[in-house]
């Protein structure tokens, strides 16, 4: 019985914690996600810099990252209003 009580209190507390977190984050979620997205876009541009004719000393490593960027790349070119990939050597959809 006592165990049950402690458990339910713990559950209640963690639920309250979730709600408070939501209350803190909900108003600014979009502004912060937008800022993060801008930074991610910049990172992606760095990864693809070689293809755009910008010399990149780390191209050996960024090449490995390209497949991982596939989904984000798709989001990005759609968001920028381009139906297909703008890069010649990197196809997408």
């Amino acid at each position, binding site marked *: 019985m006592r165990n049950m009580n402690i458990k339910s209190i713990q559950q209640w507390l963690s639920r309250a*914690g979730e*709600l*408070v*977190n*939501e*209350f*803190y984050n*909900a*108003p*600014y*979620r*979009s*502004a*912060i*996600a*937008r*800022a993060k*997205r801008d930074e991610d876009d910049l990172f992606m541009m760095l990864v693809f810099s070689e293809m755009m004719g910008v010399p990149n000393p780390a191209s050996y490593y960024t090449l490995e990252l390209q497949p991982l960027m596939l989904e984000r790349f798709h989001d990005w070119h759609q968001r920028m209003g381009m139906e297909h990939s703008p890069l010649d050597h990197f196809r997408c959809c």
Partner: protein
Amino acid sequence: MNAIFVMLLGLAAMFLGYVFYSKFVAEKIYKLDPNFKTPAHEFEDGVDFVPTNKYVLWGHHFTSVAGAAPIIGPAIAVIWGWVPAFLWVIFGTIFFAGVHDAGAIWASNRNKAKSMGSLTGDVVSKRAQTLFMIVIFLVLLMVNAVFATAISGLLVKFPSSVIPVWGAIFVALIIGQIIFRKWMGLGTVSILGVVALYLLIWAGPSAPLSLPETMGGLTDNASWVLILFGYAAIASLLPVWMLLQPRDYINGLQLFIGLILLYAAVLLLGPDMTAPAFNTNLPENTPSMLPLLFVTIACGAISGFHGLVASGTTSKQLDKETDLRFVGYFGAIGEGSLSLATIIAACAGFATLADWEAVYSSFGQGGVAAFVEGGANIISQGVGLDNEIAETLLTVMAVLFAGTTMDTGLRLQRYIFQEWGNIYNISWMQKALPATLLAVISCVALAFGAGSDGSGGLAIWPLFGTTNQLLAGLTLMVITVMLVRLGRPMYVTLLPLIFLLIMTVFALFIQLKGFYMEENWFLFGLDIVVLIAAVWIALEATSALSNLKKEQKS
């Protein structure tokens, strides 16, 4: 009359409004459908469109719409006696604000969560959208000028609040860092933050701080206005997580604590309403109650600003359509209850009628300072808090609310300038810093033009209220047109719209005469601009509705 009775009567009326009237509006007029796929689900992207728990969404919506305005307005308007202000707040909340706020969420929700501005363009006409933008710009301009004036007045009158007010900003900065870097959980930080803030408030009276009365030819009020705009400009340029987010959060907690404290103190003390029910001994130059009451109390009875919040962020996070009854309508009730608390504080917080009349010596006097003094008297006698600490507490509450609105307003104004820079290809105006400077300059010009150096008081307040009501009128027009298109009864939104338009135009003419007599040409010109907007809205609404009638006949 005893304040407990007033308080219970008001709260009960608003609650009944929620139980019955909002149910009627939600089921019969807006016909909310629990199975409608809301934009939050349809376009869910984790950025703007996120389905959110309805209590969280309510908390967010309520704290975004409730600021200093529902305190300042009623605190000025009780000069005509407490009964008119009380009735307008209660009936305004039930029949105007709740319907307007919930309606704005509904309209946006049914139109891919578009903002009220672009909805006006889609639903009414492109002309009306231009008008909407102009009115928004005017509201933002005035809100910053008005709040800077109100805050500077408070900081001069209550020097004990200076250290807690600015200290609160540092507390928020620290909290922002702690949460952003995940050093501690939010629960712990909240408690620490609130404790730190209250320690500052407790320490405030022992370290009062005031500026020299004149500094470089400026009065202390004027210096505070400049300092405030300097602060707001910097704050509006910082990343949101650094200052805005933690400060909004602390303000939200403050709002709940303050409301509970005030209502509890009223219950414990049970003071009498010392202010007259209807003031027959009005100070000279007080404008007539009809129509000025209806523009002096904007937020707290109906406010167009809510429509911007409702259609801007709230509608994008609505989990189920039926939630909007609680979020929108009950959000309005939350704000109404803040105004009700203000009325009680400003009318029951003074020992005698003579004390009260000394505070309300002329129109625009009293105001938020009366709320602070009266509220502090009630709290100190009701819960036994030291009077000076209670004064500091309420001042800090009001100042922080107004401050948040100021830098959000400045940020929005900056966006508008940047957009103009885009449209007209002015490259320097597209940058954040110059655009912010333009916004600050226009607001400071208005603040000083309206007599913020301490001479004019809040002369511009009713004009701000009028513009805010016009914005509400535009939103009501959009909802009405949508209802007519759907073949549903329109009187629920049309009657408030007509009432608002009549009162605002009437009030604008009276103020026009007042500014002319005072030879205040700056405000006179501004009044004419607002008047043109008001007449334009009336014409726009008439033509939209008559076109619809024709369409339906043919």
